């Protein structure tokens, strides 16, 4: 484990410890913004392996978030609520329920399983075709969720999921996700991911099979997308098919792109930047009064500003604020060690 990794893990543990106090000391609003930032950061980081590192740019990631949210919702709904909310639930699902942690884990596994089935064919594509095809996956998930009434209530709001996602839980999962993704990204598997992005032929020449390599990144990302979806479900307690469609897709992608596609610290940075910017602009766009000068509300201005920032990044820093790099801490004892592996956190 490199020094940088050790420091990051240390920071994560300290923040996690602090979060237990923060949730009681900070105003509820700040706690909420931090919690949703952690959930979104986990989701954005889970896009990094496939979208950033292997170069398979999926637009369907939110489809996995939906699978995770619905799986966790169905599993953790108390039995009595199940009876009134989902009267047509198949018997094998109706009579029992799981608590928060197990339902989250199962949701992650279910989502990963879906990713194996979906990814096997889709990852044979590349470039814009894989993007359009994964967008298709998103539409397909949406339509199945809308029509699978007995499991999902169709287009009606799915509600009654216990509100369990607290700041320590969200941050805890973010730390776990980042450690897991970071360890794998700096392992031979992670180097293989990047090799398939840089040069498929060269990668094959040294024995890296494109398909299974990309699939591993895709499935790992989907697992944490499922976890993130479960956290989302337990955070709001209610959601519907349209919660997981193009708008959310755009939000997550803008976070990933602005932070830097191939990097986990970039994913976190992008999420923080976009969330902070949106929160500030959301309050500014309500209009202002400077005595004589009053600016009328311009609802939607915050989205336009976000879009402009997005384009500016594409033009000026197409690899995002951090690009493929990670934020690193120089190693005092042996400075050379940090240079050979450019992407390890």
């Amino acid at each position, binding site marked *: 484990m490199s020094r940088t990794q050790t420091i990051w893990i240390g920071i994560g543990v300290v923040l996690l410890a602090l979060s237990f106090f923060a949730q009681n000391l900070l105003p509820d609003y700040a706690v909420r913004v931090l919690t949703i930032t952690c959930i979104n950061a986990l989701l954005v980081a889970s896009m990094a392996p496939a979208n950033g590192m292997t170069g398979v740019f999926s637009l369907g990631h939110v489809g996995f978030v939906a699978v995770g949210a619905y799986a966790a919702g169905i599993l953790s709904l108390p039995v009595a609520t199940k009876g009134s909310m989902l009267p047509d639930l198949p018997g094998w699902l109706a009579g029992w329920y799981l608590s928060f942690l197990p339902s989250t884990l199962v949701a992650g596994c279910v989502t990963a399983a879906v990713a194996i089935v979906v990814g096997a064919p889709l990852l044979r594509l590349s470039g814009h075709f894989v993007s359009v095809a994964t967008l298709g996956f998103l539409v397909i998930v949406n339509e199945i969720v809308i029509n699978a009434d007995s499991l999902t209530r169709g*287009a*009606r*709001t799915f509600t009654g999921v216990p509100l369990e996602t607290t700041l320590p839980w969200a941050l805890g999962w973010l730390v776990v996700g980042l450690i897991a993704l970071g360890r794998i990204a700096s392992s031979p598997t992670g180097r293989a991911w990047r090799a398939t992005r840089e040069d498929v032929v060269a990668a094959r020449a040294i024995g890296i099979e494109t398909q299974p390599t990309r699939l591993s990144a895709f499935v790992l990302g989907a697992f944490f997308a499922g976890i993130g979806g479960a956290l989302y479900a337990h955070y709001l307690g209610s959601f519907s098919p349209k919660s997981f469609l193009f708008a959310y897709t755009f939000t997550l992608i803008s976070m990933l792109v602005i932070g830097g596609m191939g990097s986990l610290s970039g994913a976190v940075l992008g999420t923080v930047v976009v969330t902070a910017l949106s929160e500030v602009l959301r309050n500014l766009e309500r209009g202002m009064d400077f005595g004589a000068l009053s600016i009328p509300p311009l609802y939607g201005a915050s989205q336009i500003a976000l879009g402009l920032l997005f384009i500016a990044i594409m033009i000026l820093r197409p690899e995002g604020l951090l690009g493929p790099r990670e934020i690193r801490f120089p190693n005092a004892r042996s400075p050379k060690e940090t240079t050979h592996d450019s992407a390890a956190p």
Partner: protein
Amino acid sequence: MTLLRRELLLGLAASLALMGAALAADPIRIAAPFNVTGGLSSLDAPALNGAKLKVAEINAAGGVLGRPLELEVFDTKSDATTVASVASQLVGGGKLAAGIGFTDSDSALALGPIFQKAGIPFVTPGATSPKLPDQVGDTMFLACFGDNVQAAAGAEFVRDQLKAKQVFLLRDNSAEYTTLLAKYFEAAYVKAGGTIIGHDDYKSGDKSLTAQITKIKAMATKPDAIYIAANPDDIGLVVKQFRQAGVMQPIIGGDGYDTPLLLSVGGKGANDVYFSTHAYMAADGTKPIQAFIKAYNAANKTDPENAFAALGYDTVALVADAIKRAGSDDPAKVKEALAATKGLEGITGTISFRPGVRVPDKTATIIGVKDEKLFLAAQVTPSFVPAP
């Protein structure tokens, strides 16, 4: 930055209030989160405009309890996580008498637990799922009837007055409102002795229903009427395409039809269309309604886009009435007063809450179209209302 400044200002205002200096002019704050942008904005924005209009009228007439009303408007972007953040920002950002907002369950349910915990009553003008208040708790109120009431009213009208024995049921399957409306209609219509001879779906955003329409035309047994659960954005096109295809049976639906688009896009295709809604809102309606339409047009340079504009207007009336009866802007007292609302005359009908039921008992109005003009077809209090 601004947040800090706002907090400072609020703190300042609060201390001033304590000194008793500015108490009289201190506004009564009402939270008003709405989805002004994003997928739901075509429904939420008119509701907010209606609410703003009523607040302006009340303030022009001297306010409530001698204090002006102030809407704390936030755009929640049609995103439930933003709704939750805004809700806690509102709850933590100074005293609120009550909150109003939203036209969909997703947003109301994301906000609900936060306002419930803070004990602040919240009235939604347009989230018409009748289950909503019970899903949240004793702080959540609807200003409109539940979809089960209007669907049942539509069903009885179709069965008893149009004498239609068999109906074809078409719905937009992409929205909660249309899904619920279709479900409740079917339950009430079958109960009333009618038969549903076929179902079909479309998706809001498809601008062609010709394939579905041709299918209905080719059916061996012809429906006596067609019930279509549609959103306001689509309804003009829906009736127009049915009529262009030569399907002339009556078309019936819910308050989604209550938009000028029904006549402007539907044209003469809108003839023989009937819909259940909150009140007869046409230009030849009652005096308050005519005044509302005129004032709305003056403020927004357009006629009310759909029924939510009038519901937003009445929601503010409902909250203002409760504050007045509570004699205070204390949210707990406002909540009690809201729950005890009896016979409040709004432009969308008379609002009363039965004890423990936070969905008002309102009579559904059935409006018809004849010679490209709206007319009041019936007032229906359904005898059977499907369970929410």
